[in-house]
């Protein structure tokens, strides 16, 4: 047995290795190498293998020159050696002589800390470097991106474990232009890494042009430098209290950085030098933010920084206390998205968020306080300026920071171009620059500075100079927040709303709705203001509907007199509880401009149950306009006073009047409602009204009072009335229904009666139902059998069994009842009756046992599964699929070698279901059987059953059979793996899909299974899934499979999916599916961008 398992495991391993060799990533490597100057190796293999990999390892460092020589007969360009026991001086000589890189493995041991590794290699020249393992760093809490930054010049490469930090790590290495580097990638997850590298190459190709700005760091052209020097301020606004040191820091973690960064760096250095206001140090080394070094700077300018620039929590805390204790911070533009998972940094800076529109959004900027020293360069303003403006989120608030510059949203088109993120604030307040105090520290921030031109502009540089001098502590400036006066804010909201119209931006409306402290008086005044759009008035009326009081009534009443504005006034007046609101509506009734408005007013008053309206409505009952007459009837019904009732009783009983009376009765107390129902029931009107009256009577009258009327309604000539009476009797007087049932004459009424009797709990109706079950009237009989589902007991099992073997429709009704009967006694009766029943009845019992999920029937069913009667065998096996428990698995497996071919599939499913029914499924019975099975049909069944269970323990058997000599077993294995519930066999399937003859049934099965498993939810990104589907597309030989791949791509929103789908459009066989996929993907990708 052990040998056998060893064989299976070994085969599985070989299969895995074969698969990783399959998706030749050569083209990806080639592209990556030419673009990024990196080399790649699959796994970190021992040196001296042939051919030499890009990087290899030595498990023990050679101790002498000779030992090095024999260890490196076929050396790779990069050789990784252990951190302990390596003589680095010797290694450096070897490396120099052979022109190779020797890298010390810093993934474990004493050099696991990047600082220690750096210290160790630095003295030994450029050929001794560090070999990194980012996953190990992450596990031990080292911040990988900070580490790569520290090591960048001394890094030879890294072992990348996909799924950890590798994507970011690769990107950062790329951003830092680190080359040459060698990467080793684990074979077991090669596809993922190939995908990452490929994405990076694509990234490079797409962004190469954009990165030039940053990459020209220090490479600003001479012309630009001359221009910049010409706009540098000659003097600073304040005289420095002492020599100031300014740290200008521009690290972008995982990003390319804004194009303006080098210009700002240079400008700050030049300003400091020319004005003597500070001495600037430019850096992007995160170590400089460590407390010991930070301390020497009077202020830090985070120049468009992005990402987590602080190496760890201590550095963060130290920065916060540096600020609280009097440090200075200057930020511009992207600084708001620095260290985004550190909440306090948002508080230090005063804002978060980077939602924006175009990079050249043209904006009118208000200078909030012309006398403020920081904005002196702009005079009194306002001024127009184009740049990329951020819309800030919490914690930003005008109440917390001193706003210096802001967007004038009335003079600015706030909808220019596309919005990236949330471009609207409820308060319509968009700051451009501010200062604030953080403890004893000072902060200056502006959203400006996306574009280089900001730092080529004299006014802007003067502004920055003043802001920096404030942060340094040299320029005295008032940082007290200036909240907008609420009155002014309210006026601004209403001013924006006045011109609003339907179909326009909802912004002004939202702002009014959000202004919870808007005084009612302002809204009332707004209604009377001239130059206000009708739509705006309607919005204000809706607000008054929420908060309005008697104070709003006169202004609202004025609106009632015009058809155009009458409805909006009703919104509010209908809901203002003050009597004056009702009065205003009543008065307007006679002066309403038309009948439409008049009926609207009636509805509003009716909703208020306004009793004082009855007189006016009574006068309208016989008015010539049918709309007003109907409204009057309905209104009287809603008001429901005795006076209203009297008025309605004076008019002819039309269906409309009857409806009003029914409404009235529902509102009125029972002693008034019941006579109304009686009157309507006795009327000669339409049966609709009488049915409604009957329901009302049954609901509102005391049971004893309603029952005689309901009983006499059973004899009504209208079946509608009979049916309603039966239903109501069942509810209010079930005993009466039981007593009256024998008197029902028509078949329809009896059927109706049986359906209602079934709903009576603890029913005395059982004898009636049993009698019905023997009726010669088919409809009655079927209804009665159906009712036994609810009323039947274990005693009725024989009766139902007998009916179940009769022809339809009896059979269906009886089966329905047998399946639904409640009680464990029923279960027992079924199990007991099973062995001794005749074949037809036995078949029914077996079916019912299955449908009821009777595990207690399993032993009997196992016996019947070997019955001589083929139908009984089959039905039993099917039922066992529903009831088989884990303890029956072995017995079911034992049936497999004997089963008839027709029943084989069902039995395999029964085996699988019984195993799966455990909370901790075990496939041991199946594996045990496998080891002794010799018959190929039996083995095929076992494979199918293992596949049906889908437990990992069964996987080796299926994998081993991929190479079985028997084609049926091979096929069963592929089929099982294709349907496997987890994506574990995805690589096996791909191998088959790529190696089996194209279009053969096995290849098609494998390919479809592979595509399905790619789509099983996992942590994989859509981009990476698209890569896997690209492989599937290449392996598809027939249009059918290509369509399956297209369908999968359609659900995988990635740029590559779109590319593949677009390419498929040129294949006429699949063009229409491809077009559908292209359209869907474009939609999905656009939605994702939004």
């Amino acid at each position, binding site marked *: 047995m052990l040998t056998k398992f060893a064989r299976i495991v070994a085969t599985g391993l070989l299969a895995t290795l074969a698969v990783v060799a399959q998706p030749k990533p050569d083209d990806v490597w080639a592209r990556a190498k030419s673009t990024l100057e990196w080399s790649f190796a699959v796994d970190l293999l021992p040196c001296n293998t042939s051919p030499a990999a890009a990087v290899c390892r030595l498990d023990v460092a050679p101790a002498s020159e000779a030992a090095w020589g024999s260890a490196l007969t076929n050396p790779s360009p990069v050789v990784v050696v252990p951190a302990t026991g390596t003589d680095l001086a010797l290694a450096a000589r070897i490396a120099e002589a052979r022109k190779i890189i020797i890298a010390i493995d810093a993934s474990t041991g004493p050099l696991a800390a990047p600082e220690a590794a750096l210290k160790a290699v630095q003295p030994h020249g450029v050929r001794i470097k560090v070999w990194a393992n980012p996953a190990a760093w992450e596990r031990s809490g080292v911040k990988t991106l900070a580490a790569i930054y520290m090591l960048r010049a001394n890094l030879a490469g890294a072992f990348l474990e996909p799924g950890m930090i590798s994507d970011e790590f690769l990107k950062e290495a790329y951003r830092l232009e680190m080359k040459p580097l060698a990467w080793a990638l684990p074979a077991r997850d090669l596809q993922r890494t190939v995908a990452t590298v490929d994405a990076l190459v694509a990234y490079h190709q797409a962004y190469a042009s954009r990165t030039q700005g940053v990459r020209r760091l220090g490479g600003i052209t001479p012309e630009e430098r001359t221009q910049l020097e010409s706009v540098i301020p000659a003097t600073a606004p304040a005289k420095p209290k002492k020599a100031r040191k300014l740290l200008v820091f521009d690290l972008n973690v995982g990003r390319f950085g804004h194009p303006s960064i080098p210009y700002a760096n240079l400008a700050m250095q030049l300003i400091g030098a020319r004005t003597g206001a500070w001495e600037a140090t430019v850096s992007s080394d995160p170590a400089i933010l460590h407390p010991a070094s930070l301390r020497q700077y009077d202020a830090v300018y985070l120049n468009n920084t992005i990402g987590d620039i602080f190496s760890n929590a201590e550095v963060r805390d130290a920065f916060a206390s540096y600020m609280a204790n009097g440090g200075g911070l200057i930020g511009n533009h992207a600084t708001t998205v620095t260290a985004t998972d550190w909440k306090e940094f948002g508080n230090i800076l005063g804002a978060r968020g980077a939602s924006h529109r175009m990079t050249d959004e043209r904006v009118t900027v208000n200078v909030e306080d012309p006398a403020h020293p920081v904005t002196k360069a702009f005079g009194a303003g306002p001024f127009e300026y184009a740049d990329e403006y951020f819309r800030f989120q919490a914690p930003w608030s005008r109440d917390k920071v001193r706003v210096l510059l802001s967007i004038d949203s009335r003079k600015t088109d706030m909808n220019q171009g596309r919005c990236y993120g949330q471009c609207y604030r409820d308060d319509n307040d968009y700051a451009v620059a501010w200062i604030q105090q953080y403890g004893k520290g000072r902060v200056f921030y502006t959203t400006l500075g996306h574009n280089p031109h900001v730092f080529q502009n004299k006014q802007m540089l003067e502004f920055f100079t003043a802001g920096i001098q404030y942060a340094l502590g040299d320029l005295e400036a008032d940082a007290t927040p200036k909240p907008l006066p609420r009155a002014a804010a309210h006026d601004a909201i209403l001013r924006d709303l006045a011109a609003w119209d339907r179909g326009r931006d909802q912004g002004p409306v939202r702002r009014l709705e959000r202004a919870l402290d808007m005084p009612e008086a302002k809204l009332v005044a707004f209604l009377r203001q001239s130059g206000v759009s009708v739509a705006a008035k309607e919005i204000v009326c809706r607000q008054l509907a929420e908060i309005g009081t008697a104070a709003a009534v006169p202004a609202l009443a004025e609106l009632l007199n015009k058809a155009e504005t009458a409805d909006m006034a009703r919104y509010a007046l209908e809901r203002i509880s003050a009597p004056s609101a009702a009065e205003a509506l009543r008065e307007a009734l006679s002066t309403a401009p038309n009948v439409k408005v008049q009926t609207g007013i009636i509805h509003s008053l009716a909703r208020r149950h306004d009793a004082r309206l009855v007189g006016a409505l009574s006068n309208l009952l016989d008015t010539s306009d049918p709309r007003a007459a109907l409204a009057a009837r309905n209104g009287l019904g809603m008001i429901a006073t005795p006076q209203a009732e009297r008025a309605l009783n004076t008019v002819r009983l039309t269906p409309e009047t009857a409806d009003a009376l029914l409404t009235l009765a*529902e509102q009125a107390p029972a002693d008034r409602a019941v006579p109304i129902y009686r009157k309507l029931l006795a009327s000669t009107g339409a049966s609709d009204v009488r049915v409604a009256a009957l*329901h009302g009577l049954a609901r509102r009258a005391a049971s004893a009072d309603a029952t005689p009327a309901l009983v006499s309604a059973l004899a009504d000539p209208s079946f509608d009335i009979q049916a309603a009476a039966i239903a109501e009797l069942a509810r209010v007087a079930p005993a009466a229904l039981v007593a009256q049932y024998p008197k029902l004459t028509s078949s329809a009424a009896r059927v109706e009666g049986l359906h209602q009797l079934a709903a009576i709990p603890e029913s005395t109706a059982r004898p009636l139902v049993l009698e019905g079950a023997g009726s010669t009237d088919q409809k009655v009989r079927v209804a009665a059998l159906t009712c036994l589902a609810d009323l039947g007991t274990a005693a009725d099992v024989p009766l139902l069994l007998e009916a179940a073997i009769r022809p339809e429709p009896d059979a269906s009704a009886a089966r329905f009842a047998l399946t639904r009967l409640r009680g464990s006694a029923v279960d027992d009766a079924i199990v007991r009756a099973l062995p001794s029943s005749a074949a037809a009845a036995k078949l029914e019992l077996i079916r019912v046992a299955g449908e009821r999920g009777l595990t207690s029937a399993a032993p009997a069913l196992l016996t019947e599964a070997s019955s001589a009667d083929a139908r009984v065998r089959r039905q039993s096996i099917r039922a066992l699929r529903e009831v088989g428990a884990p303890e029956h698995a072995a017995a079911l497996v034992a049936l497999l070698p004997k089963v008839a071919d027709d029943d084989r599939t069902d039995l395999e499913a029964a085996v699988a279901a019984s195993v799966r029914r455990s909370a901790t499924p075990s496939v041991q019975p199946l594996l045990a059987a496998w080891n002794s099975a010799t018959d190929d049909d039996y083995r095929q069944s076992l494979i199918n059953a293992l596949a049906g269970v889908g437990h990992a323990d069964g996987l080796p058997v299926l994998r081993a059979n991929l190479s079985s000599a028997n084609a049926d077993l091979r096929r069963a294995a592929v089929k099982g793996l294709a349907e496997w519930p987890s994506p574990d066999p995805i690589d096996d399937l791909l191998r088959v899909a790529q190696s089996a003859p194209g279009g053969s049934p096995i290849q098609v099965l494998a390919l479809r299974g592979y595509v399905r498993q790619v789509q099983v939810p996992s942590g994989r990104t859509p981009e990476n899934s698209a890569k896997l589907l690209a492989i599937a597309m290449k392996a598809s030989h027939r249009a059918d499979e290509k369509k399956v791949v297209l369908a999968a791509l359609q659900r995988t929103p990635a740029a590559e999916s779109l590319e593949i789908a677009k390419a498929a459009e040129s294949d006429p066989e699949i063009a229409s599916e491809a077009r559908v996929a292209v359209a869907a993907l474009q939609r999905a990708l656009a939605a994702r961008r939004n």
Partner: protein
Amino acid sequence: MIVPGSALGLNGAVPPSDRITIGHIGVGGMGTGHVRAFVQNADVQTVAICDVRREHREAAKSIVDTAYGNKDCALYNDFRELLARPDIDAMVMACPDYWHALIGLEAARNRKDMYYEKPMSMSIAENQAMRDAVNRYGVVFQFGTQQRSDAGYRFACELVRNGRLGKMRDIMIGTATAPFSPDLPEEPIPAGFDYEMWLGPSPWAPFNTRRCTRDWTHIHDYSLGCLSGAWGIHDVDIAQWALDADHSGPVEVEATGVFPGKGLFDTAKEFDAVLTYANGVKLSIMDMPTAVKKRPQFRLQWMCMVFEGSDGWVLVGRNGLQAEPKSLLREVIGPNEVRLPRSANHRRNFLDAVKTRTRPISHIDAAVRSDAVCHLSDISMRLGRKLRWSPEKEQFVSDEAANRQLSRTLRSPWRI
């Protein structure tokens, strides 16, 4: 009681006198689907179509005419004329949300049974008026929440009802997400489209094709958006079913929402409404992106709901179930446990109820209570605060401003 159609002799040929005569009101995308489906039933005779768009009603008529091989199906622009026909037994209504209650009330007054598309209406007062009218006239009412006729959702509810998840804690819903809010300029009204009738009880607004086709469902004059009519009500209704709350509801609601600042839409784009039931269970209704942030399970299926109890969770959506522990999915609910009514087809369930005068699976009480959950969420979101609700009185507890939101005033001359 739910009776199988076959037991009623509903298979096979049905004499014309025994057929249910049906009129369809609203035959856009969804309504046309209903026309196609109902006309297939041997015991149905489709006799009338109503829509305010000529091309829609004519297209629907051609489906009916083709099925019957005649030209008998009548066309209407005004639903009141269709409902006044005494020879029509039932209506199938699939209009924009703000029309639902008005048409439903008119149908009840004319004693029509109704297959009534979700949601219920634009306010709790309208819901109550509908419930009164359905009870008053004893008409059969089926709400268009067809997930109750889906075995997967029913199974999830039965797991909850029978305590298979242990003590229930949270029910979370990830519903649809509104698209980008567009700017829509006024356009000329196309010929054959009765725009005044389309607007009906809602405030006047300039015509635009998208306002009247795909986009009305994100405009608060016409709908509560993704929270309710544009999907949410489906899952809310299942949550109510699982909680056995067809005659009650939550006691507290706290909802937050982010509304588009510009463009035509004014229903929340992102939202998280948390409703607490008297037994402590919390129901959260969220748009999908918000849901994904709240629970990782939402990555498993786009638009779905998750039931979470002390002993496990089960996720259910239109694409099936998932659970932890996985063995939950193999649980068998026996005949001696709480078993919910079985319905395999929502329309068939309605037709069977019409014939037996019984309550369909999505009956009026369930509909009103489920719909109320969406309204409570919308009101809390718009008022921006937590509200207490009395399911018995169907009112907010001592909160006048909130109670003023329980009804909407309709444009004259429309009324509820």
